[in-house]
């Protein structure tokens, strides 16, 4: 049984159809990436899984349960952590307060405290900034905080929306290294990216989304080798 199964969902914003029959599957322990250009529907797909957008058709199952009608807070409780588009850290709160809010759905103080230590181990930079207002962090640090905050809900599945956006190449390397580490520690990852090369580099499988439809799905290695994908997303080909 796959951890996450998205089965033929349609979603629209008013009259604009954002997703048409999108299906994807994430097995436990995998890193799966969803790549595609601007407006392809990557963020909408993640938002549908989180319950923030309600699909008009199709099914979403998480750990075998139908979650299509669940509210976003119930989906977080089920174990879906979502680091949103644009980071959305609580700028006027400290790093610590942000992380505490990440653990909002949880009740065991002891478990929260141990996870707090764990995420600071993964993100040592945040430990140095723990009492600082998160609005004063650099873009890279804010991205780390957004990921750490999502981890504080102890998700089974961590969904990351463009974690490399707007970061310098060196920081992108750091962030992708951390994603690999989070996965190695046992969290399944669904990653959406415009930086297809990096994303396919750490993922086991990938999906390519174009104007609301999945156009390719394969192992990361095959996608990386595919002419069509190379031409469109990896800057290969003649151009």
């Amino acid at each position: 049984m796959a951890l996450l199964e998205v089965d033929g969902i349609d979603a629209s914003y008013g009259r604009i159809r954002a997703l048409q029959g999108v299906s994807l599957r994430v097995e436990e322990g995998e890193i799966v990436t969803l790549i595609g250009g601007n407006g392809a529907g990557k963020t909408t797909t993640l938002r549908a899984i989180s319950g923030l957008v309600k699909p008009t058709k199709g099914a979403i199952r998480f750990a075998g349960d139908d979650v299509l009608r669940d509210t976003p807070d119930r989906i977080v409780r089920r174990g879906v952590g979502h680091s949103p588009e644009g980071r959305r850290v609580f700028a006027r709160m400290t790093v610590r307060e942000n992380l505490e809010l990440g653990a909002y759905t949880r009740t065991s103080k002891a478990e929260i405290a141990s996870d707090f230590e764990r995420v600071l181990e993964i993100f040592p930079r945040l430990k140095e900034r723990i009492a600082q207002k998160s609005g004063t962090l650099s873009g890279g640090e804010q991205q780390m905080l957004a990921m750490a905050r999502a981890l504080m809900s102890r998700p089974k599945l961590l969904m990351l929306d463009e974690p490399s956006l707007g970061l310098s190449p060196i920081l992108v390397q750091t962030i992708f290294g951390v994603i690999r580490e989070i996965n190695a520690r046992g969290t399944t990852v669904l990653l959406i990216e415009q930086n297809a090369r990096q994303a396919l580099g750490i993922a086991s499988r990938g999906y390519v989304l174009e104007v609301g439809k999945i156009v390719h799905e394969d192992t990361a290695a095959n996608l990386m080798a595919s002419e069509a994908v190379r031409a469109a997303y990896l800057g290969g080909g003649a151009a």
Partner: protein
Amino acid sequence: MTALSGRNRTRIGLAVLGIVLLAFPWLDHNNSHIDFLANAGAFILLALGLNIVVGFAGLLDLGYAAFFAIGSYAYAMLASQQFGIHIPFWIMLFVASVIAAIFGILLGAPTLRLRGDYLAIVTLGFGEIVPQTFLNLTQFTNGPNGISSLDQPSIFGKSFGFSATPYYYVLLVLIVLGILIAVNLQRSRLGRAWMAIREDELAARHMGINTTAAKLSAFALGASFSGLAGVAYAAKLSLVSPDQFQFNVSVLVLSMLVLGGMGNIAGVIVGSFVLSFINSFLLPQSTNLAHAIGLANVDFTNYRFMLYGVILVAMMLFRPEGLIPSRQRKAEFHEAMADPTLALQEQSEYEGAART
């Protein structure tokens, strides 16, 4: 170490303030002073309630007077000759706060999807609709004449009479209760959810916060405070009429929050006391003084709104976070300006460190 720690100093300060407030009616026998303080107390209670909605949860409510009206009319209808129902004052405090909370949810529910300006405009509408409804339901409310000779509260068989002193004590107790509730709410899980919603509602939903429940709780709890204030105020005046709950009441209470420091309980109390003091004490007293020295045509109370305007503009210019700001608000108004450069500096610094 002989110096007192900040915490102890605060405690002693509060104890002294408490004793002074308890003893005040014995120290000052002028009934008009007590009367003023009791009225100010009702407004402090209103401000504490609105602070839950606007200060904690960040939901700009411009129609808060509606709940004050609902609390007052609840007392007027259920504790007077109007329908021959005479529920005791003490029970009505509870009943009216529940009724107001229910209306808080009913009027809050349609606004859940609205934010910022749109929320403000819809609540403004509700603030107008409620007094209009009381005005036009003539068969129940006597329309513009209102409902008069409301029941006098009594304690241990002794009626409150027309003295303001018992109301002063009732409001003092209600305010202490209100402060305790507000402080605990702010520190609670719900309080953290409100803070997150205030900062970024979408991010709050990503954290697994049930924003619908949290926002409705803010509306309900905020409204319940004005239910209490409404009962006390109506009983004290022994009269309710629709013109007591106009838009200017909503604006007045909001101004109290802005002046004192939204989100900060001490700030809200100071802000509402200062505005009440200007409104019901300073302006009338200085008018009397002017009349006494022969300036018969002067009426300072007419300049009330001009004075509010000047105060609010001055606050916005010089101290937008209020007299006693909450930590969060202060950051909002001051650190925001320093942010971009700071963030850039950090970024380059970090990358520099990463390269080496």
